[in-house]
Each structure stands twice: as structure tokens, then as C-alpha cells.
């Protein structure tokens, strides 16, 4: 006797199809055989899945770097050829794709994927094959915990220090103006947790109580109940461990719907996605904060060419360049500098050179310790004010002398 007509066969086939689809094998955007003189650079990025927004931004940054480098005649006369796969935001897929890049595609060097969650599993593949692994977005402590000497994180500081300017600013407020209860809803992601844990420790040292701290899954989109819980806990400073537009914008929408109105709202990621943040939130974006490692208007060497080329290749109505694109571009710049200085793609020489030198990129000029942590840089605190993203802390670099708005307008 059978209870249902649906047999196991179609389900098994479906699972196989889903696995095949999610692996993304065969989805290379460039499988052409490259000329021998080209420098083959392997990258796996999350162009689909829950990290697709930042993955696409990062991928565009890499494409701009490839275009700029080749427009200058390549590196040491050799053109750059990126071989790239879409990992669907899945760590296992990214790992298998980096293995394929090294063993099948036989790339010369590797650049990392966006986010700590994808860098942590894939950096081990690069280490296994003694490949240099330069990346612009994976800066959580776990990235450096295994002391791989082939990893180089291209931002001014690691993520534990991302919210330092927020802590400094709150510390600068008179005690009667400081928030008193903090809420830390956090994406189940190593980057987000590193940011939040550091802030929580600093705030508790300043006497700011922890009213709420919970982890939510990466696919979370409904934040109304989390907002209700924080409102009940009388949270007046929100430090959200967000990773993408999905959880950051979803949170703002949910919080506004249940009347959760903190005095300060800081997001580990989200408000810096200038091109989409306003589209997603319109007036609710006002007053939201995050940290910045790069500024579109920066005058550091190479930034103007990067911004101009980006906007030419990826025009948008607001003429905005996402930070992830700059981070990827900077990773490419660092790799190019090392290849140029060592005269080839000997990965051991490139790794040694990067450990011994500071490199100028659009992210600034800095070097790395033995595990790939950047040394010597700092972040800035930014806030949405009247539909503009302004640097508000430290005051000596603030945009036109603007100061942080507290309490932020209601969302």
C-alpha cells in the first residue's frame, strides 16, 4: 500500500539537481584559454545568494582593477586575466572552486572572496597550495587565528577596530548625554560578531549596560520581534552586527514598525552601501551610522582613476561607488605591487615581499604582520545626514565640520 504517489526517485533527482546548481561548477564567466603571457588571477565570489549584493560590488571592483591594470600595459608587460566563479554564497562551493582554480585552471595567483565567512574556509586552500591570498573584506579575528603567512587583509585595520571611532565618540560625550543601555542583535557571522563583541566590551567598561544580545541567522529578514524585545529592554543605543543590506535594511524596517527608536543606531555593514541604502529605506536612513575604511572623495594616489573607471564601467544614477568595490580594487593593487616588485608570479617571493613592505592602495598605505593583519591604519565613523553620507568622527577628518547627530531622527 502506498500513501502518496510521490516516489523517492524525483526527490533524489531534485536533490542532485539542486546540488549541481548550487555547486556552480561550469558557471565560470571566463573559461577561455588564456595566452601564456597573461597573469591568471583566480577569484570565487558570491554573485548569487544572501551575500550577492556585497559579492557583486566586490566583483565589480576586481573587474575595474583588471581594466585599469591592463589599460596601463599590465604588470611588467603581462596582462591580467581574471578567472572567476560564482559560489552562491556557500562556503563549501567557494572551497571547491578555489581548489579548481589552482589545480584545473592553474591560475598564477589568487584574490579572496568578499566577507570573513567566505575567506576563513578558502584561505586554507590557498595556504595548502602555497598561494598568496590577498583579500579586501575578511578581517575578523578568525581569519588570522591560524597564522597563515600567505593571507593579506587590505583595509586600514582589522574588524575588531572597525567600531573604535563609535566607542571614542560615545566616550567623548558628557555622562548625562551618553546612552545607558545597548542592544547587540548580531548576524551569525564571524565579521559581525567580532565588531559587536569589541564594542560590547568597551561599552560595558564605560558603564553602558547590555540590554539585549542575540544572534540571528544570515537569512533573517523579519526583525519586528527583535525590535520589540529591545524596546522592552529600553535599549537606547543599537549596535547591529549586520552583514548585508538584507539584514541591515530589514532591521530598520522592522524596528520602525514596532516603535523601537534608539538614540544611536550603528550597523557593522549596510549604511555604507550608498547606492542601495537610500533606495531601500528612503527617509528611514537618516541618522544611521557605520564605519568607513575608504571614501569616494579620497585624494589618495590612484583613487580618482579607480572612481572614474568604476563609474564608466558601472554607471548609476547617484554616481556612487560601493566600499566593497574599493576594497577589492585595493586588494588587486596590493597584489599588482608585489608582482611588479618581485618581477613575476613566484608566490613565495610575493609573500615574503608583502611581509617586508608597506603598499599604497586606495585604502591607504600600510603593511602587515606575520598573520596578515594590517598595521597602522584607522576607520572613520560615518552617518547619514540629510541624504548625504558624512564622516562625523574623528572630528579632524569630519566632512565640512559636521558632528554626529544625537539623538538620531525617528525612523
Amino acid at each position, binding site marked *: 500500500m502506498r500513501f502518496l*504517489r510521490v516516489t523517492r526517485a524525483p526527490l533524489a*533527482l*531534485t536533490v542532485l539537481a539542486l546540488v549541481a546548481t548550487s555547486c556552480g561548477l561550469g558557471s565560470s564567466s571566463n573559461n577561455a584559454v588564456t595566452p601564456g603571457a597573461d597573469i591568471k588571477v583566480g577569484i570565487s565570489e558570491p554573485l*548569487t545568494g544572501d551575500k550577492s549584493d556585497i*559579492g557583486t560590488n566586490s566583483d565589480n571592483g576586481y573587474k575595474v582593477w583588471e581594466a585599469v591594470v591592463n589599460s596601463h600595459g599590465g604588470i611588467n608587460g603581462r596582462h591580467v586575466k581574471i578567472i572567476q566563479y560564482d559560489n552562491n554564497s556557500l562556503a563549501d562551493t567557494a572551497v571547491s572552486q578555489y581548489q579548481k582554480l589552482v589545480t584545473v585552471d592553474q591560475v598564477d595567483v589568487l584574490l579572496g572572496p568578499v566577507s570573513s565567512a567566505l575567506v576563513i574556509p578558502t584561505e586554507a586552500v590557498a595556504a595548502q597550495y602555497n598561494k598568496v591570498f590577498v583579500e579586501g573584506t575578511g578581517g575578523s579575528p578568525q581569519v588570522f587565528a591560524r597564522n597563515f603567512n600567505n593571507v593579506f587583509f587590505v583595509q586600514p585595520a582589522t574588524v575588531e577596530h572597525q567600531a573604535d571611532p563609535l566607542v571614542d565618540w560615545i566616550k567623548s560625550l558628557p555622562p548625562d548625554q551618553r546612552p545607558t543601555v545597548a542592544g547587540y542583535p548580531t548576524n551569525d557571522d564571524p565579521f559581525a560578531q567580532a565588531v559587536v563583541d569589541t564594542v560590547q566590551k568597551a561599552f560595558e567598561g564605560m558603564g553602558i549596560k547590555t540590554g539585549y544580545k*542575540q544572534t*540571528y541567522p544570515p537569512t533573517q529578514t523579519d526583525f*519586528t520581534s527583535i525590535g520589540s524585545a529591545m524596546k522592552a529592554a529600553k535599549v537606547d543605543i543599537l549596535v547591529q552586527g549586520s552583514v548585508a543590506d538584507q539584514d541591515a535594511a530589514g532591521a530598520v524596517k522592522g524596528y520602525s514598525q514596532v516603535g523601537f527608536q534608539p538614540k544611536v543606531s550603528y550597523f557593522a555593514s549596510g549604511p555604507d552601501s550608498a547606492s542601495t541604502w537610500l*533606495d*531601500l529605506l528612503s527617509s528611514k536612513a537618516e541618522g544611521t551610522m557605520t564605519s568607513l575604511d575608504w571614501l569616494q572623495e579620497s585624494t589618495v594616489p590612484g583613487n580618482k582613476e579607480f572612481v572614474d573607471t568604476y563609474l564608466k564601467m558601472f554607471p548609476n544614477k547617484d554616481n556612487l561607488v560601493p566600499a566593497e568595490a574599493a576594497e577589492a580594487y585595493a586588494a588587486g593593487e596590493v597584489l599588482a605591487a608585489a608582482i611588479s616588485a618581485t618581477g613575476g608570479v613566484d608566490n613565495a617571493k610575493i609573500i615574503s615581499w608583502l611581509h617586508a613592505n608597506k603598499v599604497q592602495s586606495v585604502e591607504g598605505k600600510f603593511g602587515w604582520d606575520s598573520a596578515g593583519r594590517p598595521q597602522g591604519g584607522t576607520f572613520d565613523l560615518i552617518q547619514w545626514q540629510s541624504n548625504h553620507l558624512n564622516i562625523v568622527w574623528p572630528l579632524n577628518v569630519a566632512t565640512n565640520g559636521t558632528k554626529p547627530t544625537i539623538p538620531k531622527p525617528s525612523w
Partner: protein
Amino acid sequence: MLLLQGLVLGVLVGGMYALMASGLTLIFGVMRLINIAHAAVIIFASYLSWQLLRVLGIDPLISIVILVVVFFIGGALLQKYVLSALIDKDLSLALLATLGVANVLEGMEGALWTSSFHAINTGYSDQTYHFGDVYVPLIRIITFVASVIILAGLYVLLTHTNLGRAIRATTQNRAIAQLVGVNVNRITMIAFGIGIAVAAAAGPLMGMYYPFYPNSHWGWIGKLMAIVVLGGLGSFRGTLVAALILGVAEQVTILYVPANWAATVFFVFLFAVLIVRPQGFFGHVARESL
């Protein structure tokens, strides 16, 4: 008060879940087909509603009417010219075809609208009412009411019209329905079209709730299938009850424990119910001859 807030939000979101899942259960009931593309259709309707609002200024609630008509026709044609032929050969082929439809829609959305997140923002998106300390967002009231109206319309259609009786007869026993003169092929085509049209109605409402992106449907289809299974495959009443349970379980769980546990709580409940009642709340055990 916090618990009351969670219950209110849970019931409201549960109404939308019921609408999202009802088309899935209708299609399964009539065709015995798990439409893997169901959530992809919902997301596609969200994109179209977003586009209609952005380009033509058509309110999402108005766009529901347009989308329902277009998607009904599209669904009926898909069933008539693709799925019915495949089902006649092997049900698993039709199942794979729906997987293909999901992938096609996902790829098309990525090409047309990029893989960035989108959200449908209207003038009333920001409004919220509060009764004491309980906040009730207008958008949630609207989506709940719209879901109830659509589901009520579907209920009336199925229980008080000849078409509905024919659909129910086909659902209960296809062979006997045919024997008593029901044109089961035509009824199946119409029922599939209705299922897709209901999914289209859910799209704009879902898009006003949550940000969406091309492959966000994979996160939804598991949840919708779980609702349909818990309610009893093919049962509307069961779908409604299960959706409300999922909505309340999610919202209340998050109030007290990490959100990671919200889905777990629902699935633990699902497994517990299925152990006691494998056919779900209102499902029937289909006995077939050996």
C-alpha cells in the same frame, strides 16, 4: 505585554504565510505535484510589482489585480503545454520542470534587476498604529486583510461554485471525477492557473514586508512546504492553521531566545505532529490499490 506583541505580529505574518502557501497546496491537491517554482513565482511577482510602482507609479495593492490575471494565464499555459505532457510520462519530469522554471525566473531577475536587494516602499509603508504598548504596523494589517480577502475568495470559489466542486472532485479522486463527467484536464489547467495567480497575489504583499533578491526564493520554498505538510497536503484549512502556528512560533520564539532557534522550534513542532499524525492536521491518507 511583550508576549501580546509577539502574538499579534505572529498572527499577522501568519496570514501572509497562508496566502503564500495556499497556491502550493492547491496545486499539490489537484496535480500531486510539488511546485518547486512556487516561491520563485512569488518573488517574480514582487519584482514586477516593484517595477510597476517605480515606472508607472502603480500601487502594489492595485498591481495585485494586474498580476493575478497575467499569472493565471501564464500558469494555465505552462500547465497545458509543458507540465501536463510531462506528468503523463512521469511525475518526476514535471517536478524537475518546475525546478527549471525556478532557475529560469531567478536568472532572468538577476539579468533584469541585478542581484542587489530590492524592497517595495510605498507612502504608507512607514505608518504604524499602537494600542498601548502593542504596535501594529499598517503594512501588516493591510497584508493580513488582503490575504484574508483573497483566501476567503478562494474558499468561496472552491465551495460554492461548480468550478470549485469540480476542482475538489479532481483533488479527491481524479478517476471518479472523470467518470462523472468532469473534464479533469481542463480543471487541472484552471486549478494550476489559480495556484500561480494566488502566488502572484502574494508577491507584492511579501515585497512590502521583506527585502528580496533573485534567489531568495530558496529560503522560502522550504518554509512553505513545511506549512503545507503540517497542514495536510492539499488542505486549505490545514494550510491556514499551520501558517498561523509558524508565524506565532517564529515571532514569540525570537522574543525570548536567539532567532536561530525560531525555525528550529517550528520544525520540532512539525516533526512532533507528523509522528502522531503523519498526514498533517487536516490531510487524508490516500489509499491506493496494490
